[in-house]
């Protein structure tokens, strides 16, 4: 009877001991996991300066420099001539390979370089070489036909006599036509000066 009574106690004690051991193991594995994670995070932010790491970091720096300096140039839009499509203060990228295998088309938004790539003009092509451009009461006419411009939200009352776009040139204008004609930079530009278009 006694044995029968004691047996559950031992079993319970054994069971509790096992459970405690289990908890300890769990805590240990948790702490081990934490340590591994901590080490990984630490290694990521404070890596040891091995030759392999330095080579990898240099490679990443060179690739980033070439990519963001030559291929995909970051832009900060300043001015309101392309509103509402591109707002003053907006951030974008000039994607240079855009016209690597194709010619600029009408309605394309393009980046026009000045002396270099630090200051560029962002404009929309409204006519290509050989076409005649004209503004009548703010409406655009190309080769005598009125052009529908859904991107123009701020219309103006511009009047500009008809003129032909020269060879290897395109005619570029900003979307914001509410600006004074005199204060708006537009006109025909050599295709060589187009260095790409905005990424979005």
């Amino acid at each position, binding site marked *: 009877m006694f044995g029968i009574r004691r047996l559950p106690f031992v079993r319970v004690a054994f069971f509790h001991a096992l459970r405690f051991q289990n908890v300890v193991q769990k805590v240990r594995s948790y702490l081990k996991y934490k340590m591994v994670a901590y080490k990984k995070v630490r290694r990521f932010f404070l890596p040891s300066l091995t030759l392999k790491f330095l080579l990898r970091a240099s490679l990443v720096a060179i690739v980033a420099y070439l990519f963001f300096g030559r291929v995909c140039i970051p832009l900060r839009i300043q001015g309101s001539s392309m509103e509402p499509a591109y707002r003053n203060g907006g951030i974008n990228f000039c994607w240079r390979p855009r016209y690597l295998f194709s010619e600029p088309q009408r309605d394309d938004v393009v980046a026009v370089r*000045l*002396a*270099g790539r630090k*200051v560029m*003009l962002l404009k929309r092509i409204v006519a290509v070489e050989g076409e005649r451009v004209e503004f009548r009461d703010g409406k655009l006419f190309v080769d005598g036909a009125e052009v529908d411009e859904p991107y123009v939200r701020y219309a103006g009352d511009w009047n*500009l006599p008809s003129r032909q776009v020269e060879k290897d040139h395109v005619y*570029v204008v900003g979307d914001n036509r509410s600006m004074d004609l005199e204060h708006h930079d537009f006109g025909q530009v050599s295709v060589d000066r187009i260095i790409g278009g905005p990424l979005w």
Partner: protein
Amino acid sequence: MVRLRYAVTMVVMMTSGTMAILCSSPGEEGKVKKQFHFLSEWVSKDRGEKPLTTARKIRNIRILFARECALKAHIDSYSGTYTPDEIAGHAAAVRSRFSSVSLSFYDFNIDFPEEGSANVNVTARLTGISTTGERVDDAHELECLLKCAEEKWIFTQVEVIDVLRR
């Protein structure tokens, strides 16, 4: 071993000394850029600039230009030949129209076609707020010709390139 250490130290010191001398004495390109830097500094104006500072800047602008400096622009009324005093006068007139104005130059392409002569292709950007509160932001490509006179580069010709032709 000690001799080797001395030799290495000497080589390092000589290399760094040579580098420091080369870096501290700018070449002709640096001197040309410096003139643009001065022009930018003296044309620019902060809000609430003191009259004495204005006078000093306007006086300084004169020394950057040759006795006869040609300006070519797509607006015919601006084209012509100007004396340093006339240029300084125009600069003063432009500055007076702004409460704050900043002239900056970007993308320098400098070449020296002959000794004592520099061709500079550059982007000039003028930003500011007029006295009427209107915001101005204008960028133009310039082709400048500078001549070296008495070891100083001075502007002899400035042409505004017509990038967009209406």
